[in-house]
């Protein structure tokens, strides 16, 4: 308590100074920033992990060039060490076990020591501490008027197989340092967030005779059965207002894409093809969808109006483009570039506009799958699979920086964020 009051006093002094800050517009040049851990910050594995998360947040934002080594110092000192004046900014932080877990951060202009931002964060649940770091960095990012990186505060939800015919659905922060299994037992797959606030998600349960789509509120446990279908049933996309979903269903044993009104349960068949149509995603203000189909004899990305039957191919390269995601006027898709029946295949990711133009490769080797745009469309999440398990990668589409986080030995089945 005493320390906190001292902290507040120092804060008022710092912020009372005549701060002069020059903010570079646009964020195209990364800001060099030295990270100073307070001498009395919580140590151990939690302290080490927090530091690595702060570092990862800065790198993946594409806006910062953090110092390479951890520096320690006095959190309350207003003196900028001479050897750090070459940086643009100084970030000081302190992690404590005050009231659960508290993180104090302060950002300074390195050249003149003026304070730019200062804030404390607290949570009761210590297991979710990675979110303290994410919130702090996204706030610092906002304080510098850089393009929002709000997506780092979001949950990632994914399913993974645990043994044949069994899986679990797991909630995580984007670095996977926080993980919580929220559904276990049985075969439950294809989690998909049901609303922009991430309060509920859809998933497919195989516990009954037929696949059933449920929506589960992760805070109160309320579970609603949305639809049942023979064959398969997957929620592929959710409309912006959450009132409609795109689902791959097969009531007659034929996988096609349907739009379901969540409130009324009314189903509208959008595609009608004797082969495979899956993975519908809303595009063009939800007036059209892009989806994966084998109607030309191989898996590829196609586009169709919600209310029409005319189908046009979107991508004109590759012979097995079997996954895609959409954001505004652009798509990201996975392409299988080898077809070995006896060993791992190469899957690469490509960015394109929703008409198939401006194709740009995002990966060059390995099994890169399940591409998902961030909520602002600036970053792509993907899964890099190998026989040893899965890694989750993030590619900043503007800076082309990427980060990989290990997910252990179990293979991801599906993922959303």
């Amino acid at each position: 308590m005493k320390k906190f009051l001292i902290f507040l006093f120092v804060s008022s002094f710092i912020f009372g100074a005549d701060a002069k800050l020059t903010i570079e517009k646009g964020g195209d040049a990364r800001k060099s920033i030295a990270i100073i851990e307070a001498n009395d910050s919580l140590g151990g594995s939690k302290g080490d992990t927090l530091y690595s998360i702060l570092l990862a947040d800065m790198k993946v934002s594409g806006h910062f060039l953090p110092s390479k080594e951890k520096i320690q110092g006095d959190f309350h000192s207003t003196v900028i060490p001479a050897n750090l004046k070459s940086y643009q900014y100084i970030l000081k932080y302190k992690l404590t076990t005050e009231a659960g877990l508290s993180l104090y951060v302060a950002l300074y202009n390195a050249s003149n020591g003026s304070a730019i931002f200062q804030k404390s964060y607290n949570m009761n649940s210590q297991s979710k501490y990675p979110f303290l770091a994410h919130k702090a960095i996204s706030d610092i990012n906002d304080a510098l008027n850089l393009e929002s990186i709000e997506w780092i505060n979001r949950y990632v939800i994914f399913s993974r197989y645990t043994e044949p015919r069994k899986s679990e659905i797991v909630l995580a922060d984007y670095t996977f340092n926080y993980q919580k299994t929220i559904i276990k037992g049985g075969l439950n797959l294809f989690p998909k967030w049901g609303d922009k606030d991430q309060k509920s998600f859809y998933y497919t349960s195989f516990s009954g005779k037929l696949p059933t789509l449920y929506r589960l509120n992760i805070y109160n446990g309320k579970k609603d059965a949305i639809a049942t279908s023979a064959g398969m049933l997957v929620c592929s996309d959710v409309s912006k207002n959450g009132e409609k979903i795109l689902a791959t269903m097969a009531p007659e044993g034929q996988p096609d894409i349907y739009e379901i009104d969540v409130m009324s349960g009314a189903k509208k068949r959008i595609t009608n093809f004797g082969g495979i149509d899956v993975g519908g995603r809303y595009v063009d203000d939800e007036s059209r969808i892009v989806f994966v189909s084998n109607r030309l004899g191989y898996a590829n990305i196609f586009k169709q109006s919600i209310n029409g039957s005319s189908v046009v191919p979107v991508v004109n390269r590759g012979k097995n483009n079997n996954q895609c995601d959409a954001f505004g006027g652009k798509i990201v898709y996975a392409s299988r570039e080898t077809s070995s029946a006896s060993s791992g295949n190469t899957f690469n990711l490509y960015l394109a506009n929703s008409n198939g133009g401006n194709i740009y490769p995002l990966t060059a080797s390995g099994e890169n799958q399940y591409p998902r745009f961030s909520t602002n469309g600036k970053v792509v999440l993907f899964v890099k699979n190998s026989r040893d398990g899965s890694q989750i990668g993030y590619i900043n589409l503007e800076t082309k920086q990427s980060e990989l986080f290990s997910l252990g030995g179990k293979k991801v089945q599906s993922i959303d964020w």
Partner: protein
Amino acid sequence: MKKNLILSITVLVLLGGCAQKAPNLSGNVSDATGFNGESVSTADGNGISSPNGAMIDGRYNSSSDGFQSIYFSFGAYNVESDMYSYIAKNAENIENIGGSQIKIEGNCDEFGTDEYNYALGLKRAKAVKEALVSKGISADKFVLVSLGESSPVCNEPTEICYSRNRRVDLRVSR
């Protein structure tokens, strides 16, 4: 709670009196919203029994109730000619079983990708159903489900193993 409130007010009062040019300094208080909501944890389903698969009469089989699994080529969902005799045998078995519904489960190797792989498994199940219907079995007799790559009978990184996973299993629906 009361302590936090006092601290928050103290922070606001102290900072409110500080003139400065730095951006976004409002709300410089303990920010717990969104952190402390605990998500639920639940169980859904006890799992479906996993087929082991066994070598019978020189062929692998992971179906039950007298049925024979049908195998497929890489990426394909057409019933190939070397499987016709097993389709005929399965049709006979259905006649012998009588009124029970038959579950047809489509499966894939691990090389496919999420939704597409499940659709591929479903197309395999549908192809087997249609082959059985062509033998005179009523289409109402069947329940189709795709298990995608979730139900492998073999996990070795060999072609023989992968080919055992590209299959359709049949069993009485219970």
